[in-house]
C-alpha cells in the first residue's frame, strides 16, 4: 500500500478561525477578484499563494502572483510561453524558492524545503520535462524517490513495485506491455502517462500538472483528461494544471487563471468564460507587446520597423 502522507487528510475542513482569516486575506487582495466556483464538489480553500515574486538575474518571471485553490477544484493555469507558469509550479512544489511572498496550506504557512517536503505535505507534481530517467525501467521510474523496500534489510522490493506499477497504469488505462524496459524506449505519450500515474498513485491532496498533455496523441490525451475528470468526481484531490489548449481547459477545469506580465490577469470560473474570450485576451496581449516593441525601436531612433 502507498505510504500515507503526513499532511492533514483531505477531508479535514478548515477550522472556523482559519476560514475567517482566509476569507479576510482574500478580501484584502487587490488583484484578481476571488471567484466563487459554481461547481458543486468544490469546497473550502486549500492552498493560497500570496504576492509571490521570483526573478532570474535581470529577468523577472513572476511579479505578484495571488492564487487560491479550493478543495476538490481543478484550476487551469494559462499564460504565454515564458510567462512563469512552470516557475510558479516549481515554487509551489518546493523545487525553487520564491524571492518574496507567502503560501498557505490548510490556512497555515506553507514553506516547502524540498520536493520531498512538499510531497510529505500532500503536494505532488508532474513536471514539464516529466523528471523521468531514460536508463531506469518503467517501474523504477514510477517509484523513483518513492521506493518500497524490504525490512529489516532495506533492499528494494522490485517484485512488489512492478506489481503496483502495473496496477496503477491499468487504472489509468495506458497499455505498456513491459515494465522492466528502460523508459527511453517508450513513446512520448507512454512516458507522460508514467509521470502522471506515479503522481496519482501517491494519493496526494494537491496534484500539480505542468502541461500533462504535451507530447500526447489525441487518444492518450483523452485518457489523461478522463482520469482527471474521474479524480475530480471522487473529490479527494485538488489539481492545478498548466494547459495550452483552451478547449481542454474549458472541458476539464472548474476555474481558469491567466498569468500576464507576472501577475494573474484573469481569474474566472470556466462556466463564465469562453474560448473566444480567452483567445481575445491573448490576441490583445500579443498586439500590445508588438506595439511596445515597435515603440521601443522608434524611440531608439532606429530605422522604422515595418509593421507586419
Amino acid at each position: 500500500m502507498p505510504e500515507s502522507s503526513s499532511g492533514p487528510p483531505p477531508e479535514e475542513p478548515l477550522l472556523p478561525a482559519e476560514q475567517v482569516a482566509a476569507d479576510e486575506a482574500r478580501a484584502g487582495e487587490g488583484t484578481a477578484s476571488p471567484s466563487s466556483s459554481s461547481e458543486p464538489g468544490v469546497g473550502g480553500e486549500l492552498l493560497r499563494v500570496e504576492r509571490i515574486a521570483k526573478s532570474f538575474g535581470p529577468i523577472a518571471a513572476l511579479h505578484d502572483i495571488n492564487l487560491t485553490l479550493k478543495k476538490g477544484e481543478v484550476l487551469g493555469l494559462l499564460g504565454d510561453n515564458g510567462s512563469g507558469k512552470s516557475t510558479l509550479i516549481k515554487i509551489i512544489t518546493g523545487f525553487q524558492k520564491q524571492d518574496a511572498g507567502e503560501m498557505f496550506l490548510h490556512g497555515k504557512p506553507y514553506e516547502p524545503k524540498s520536493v520531498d517536503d512538499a510531497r510529505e505535505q500532500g503536494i505532488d507534481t508532474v513536471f514539464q520535462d516529466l523528471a523521468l530517467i531514460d536508463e531506469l525501467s518503467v517501474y523504477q521510474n514510477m517509484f523513483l524517490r518513492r521506493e518500497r523496500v524490504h525490512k529489516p534489510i532495506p533492499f528494494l522490493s522490485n517484485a512488489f513495485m512492478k506489481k503496483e506499477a502495473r496496477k496503477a497504469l491499468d487504472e489509468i488505462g495506458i497499455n505498456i506491455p513491459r515494465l522492466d524496459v528502460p523508459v527511453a524506449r517508450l513513446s512520448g505519450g507512454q512516458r507522460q502517462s508514467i509521470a502522471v500515474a506515479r503522481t496519482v498513485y501517491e494519493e496526494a491532496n494537491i496534484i500539480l500538472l505542468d502541461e500533462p498533455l504535451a507530447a500526447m496523441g489525441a487518444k492518450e490525451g483523452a485518457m489523461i483528461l478522463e482520469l482527471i475528470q474521474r479524480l475530480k468526481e471522487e473529490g479527494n484531490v485538488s489539481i492545478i494544471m498548466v494547459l495550452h489548449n483552451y478547449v481542454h481547459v474549458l472541458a476539464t477545469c472548474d476555474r481558469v487563471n491567466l498569468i500576464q506580465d507576472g501577475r494573474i490577469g484573469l481569474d474566472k470560473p470556466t462556466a463564465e468564460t469562453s474560448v473566444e474570450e480567452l483567445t481575445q485576451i491573448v490576441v490583445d496581449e500579443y498586439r500590445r507587446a508588438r506595439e511596445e516593441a515597435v515603440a521601443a525601436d522608434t524611440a531608439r531612433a532606429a530605422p522604422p520597423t515595418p509593421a507586419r
Partner: protein
Amino acid sequence: MILALLGSCIIGLVNGFFIAVVGISSFVATFGMLFTISGLTLVISHSAPVGTPGTSSLHVETFAKIFGGGTYSELIWALAIVVLLQLVLTFTRWGIYTVAVGGNRLGSAEAGVRVRLVLIRNFVLCAGLAGLVGVLEAVRTVTATPDPSGSNEILFQAIAAAVIGGTLLLGGSGTVVGALIGALFLGILHDGLIIKGVSADYLDLYLGLAIILVMTINVFVQKVRTGSGLA
C-alpha cells in the same frame, strides 16, 4: 592499509565537493586531482620507491596473499567487487539514485533525489576502490613507486576497460558487468598476444587496433538491434 583507504576516500570527498558543490566538470576535477596527487607522491617520497610494509620479496605472508600477493588475489577482489556493486546498483536506493543522477540530473532533482549527496558518495566510493587497487598493486609489486607514468598505465587500462564495457566517458551511463567484460577483454587480449609470442614492440599497436575494431562492431550491432526494434 586502512589509512591508505581512508586517505583515498578523503580524496574522493574533495573531488565530490568540487564536482557537486562548486560545479567543476567531473573529468576536469579528477584530472586535476590526478596531477596533484602524482606530484604530492613525488614530493613526499623524494622520488624514491618505498617498500610496502608487511611484504617481502622473499616470502609471501597470508596478509599479502589476500591483498594482492596471491596468484588470483586481484581477480577474486575484482569479481567480488563486481558482484557486490551490481547488487547495490540493482537492489538498493543508492544504486537507483546513482543511475538516476547519471542519466538525468535535473529530472532526479525534480523527483526529489538529493543529487549532490549521491554525487559525493559515489566519488568517495570510486576513490576508495582506486585506493584499494593501489594497495593491491603495492602489495603485489612489494614496493610503492612514485612513478606517474607507471600508475597512469593502470589508470588508462581501467578507463579503457570501462569504456569498452559501455560506460560513457563523460559520465552518465554504464554498468559494472560491462566494465568487467571490458577488463577481461583487455586482459585476455594482452596475455593472448604475449602467449602467441608477439613482439613487445607490436603489442600496444595490436591492442589499440583490436579495441577500435571491437568498438566498431559494437556500434554496428547496436544499430542493427535498435533498428529491428529488438533493443
